């Protein structure tokens, strides 16, 4: 069971990170806290921060470094145009997938 849960989470975390930035830019820890609200995902630092770095490298996120009142500078991430396109595609696919899987699993096919 744990292996299956891990695989499902892995597939979803990229969508969740992009979705967390839909409302505007945020710094790493802020994104982590937003994602932590989705408790079953159990997303951690070692998942989110490397993913943010990878998405920035792929041009889906733009990074801005800004001073912080709490200490060292924070890296603020925001969606690029390419990132918004990717998020829209992923959301669209997720809707289809969710509907299809729910119908199969819970038998609520109309």
């Amino acid at each position, binding site marked *: 069971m*744990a292996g299956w*849960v*891990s*695989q499902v*989470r*892995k597939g979803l975390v990229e969508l969740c990170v992009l979705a967390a930035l839909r409302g505007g830019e945020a*710094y*790493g*820890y802020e994104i*982590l806290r937003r994602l932590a609200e989705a408790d079953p995902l*159990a997303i*951690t*630092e*070692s*998942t989110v*921060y*490397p*993913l*943010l*770095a*990878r998405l*920035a*490298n792929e041009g889906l996120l733009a*990074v801005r*470094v800004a*001073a*912080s009142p*709490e*200490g*060292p*500078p*924070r*890296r603020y991430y925001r969606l690029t145009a390419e990132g918004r396109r990717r998020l829209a595609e992923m959301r669209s696919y997720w809707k289809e997938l969710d509907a299809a899987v729910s119908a199969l699993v819970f038998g609520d096919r109309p």
Partner: protein
Amino acid sequence: MTDARMDLPPDVRIHVDVYLDAVRAAQMAAGVPSDEAAGIRDDLRAQIYDMLSARAAGRTPAPEDVQAVLAQLEPPEAFGPSGEGGAAAAAPRAPAPAAAASLPAAQAAPLPVGPPKPKFCRTALLGLLGFLPMMGFCVLLVPLAYFGCHVLRVGPGADMAGGPLPHISQMSWLAVCAGLIPLAGMLWTTICGIAAIVQIRRAAGQLTGLWLAVFDAVVFPIIVLVILVVGVLACG
């Protein structure tokens, strides 16, 4: 960046540095590209300071505070080969008692211990190379002057030498060649200086040499400014 880190007492900062150093070693073991790895550690450092700030609530954080904060984080090994997308990343957060030993775990691991040593900015050092053409120009100035005066018969003493005046293109060629070399060096040093300042400011305390970067960036503009002012004053 650096001044913000100074806000933490050394006996508190050492715990943060040890943790981040262990993360860096785990990232190296995982083959994470260095720029990507540095960004991840910057995110982690900002998180630790945020958590410390929330925990200390206005007072200076104590070593117990930082230990409690680090205990809430994943062990550094989670950023290693089994990190992103691996079992460690996907696993639920470890319960507090197990994680409470995060600092000793980081120290017990076969990883370098101690605060990360900031590196000197290479770009600032590269900027010094721009001085070489300038020095070379100064060294060559004497033979060039000799060449101008005695071979091309340009400048002071040319009439006394009694030779014919050189063609204007020869003088232009000499002036352009002599001027381009130090100009290229000056531009190189200034550009490197500016780039180094940007790098150092973005490095969150991991790069040093700001003084050299500033020197690189301003030395030639200042020299040019001084020459211009002196020239204007002399002519005026």
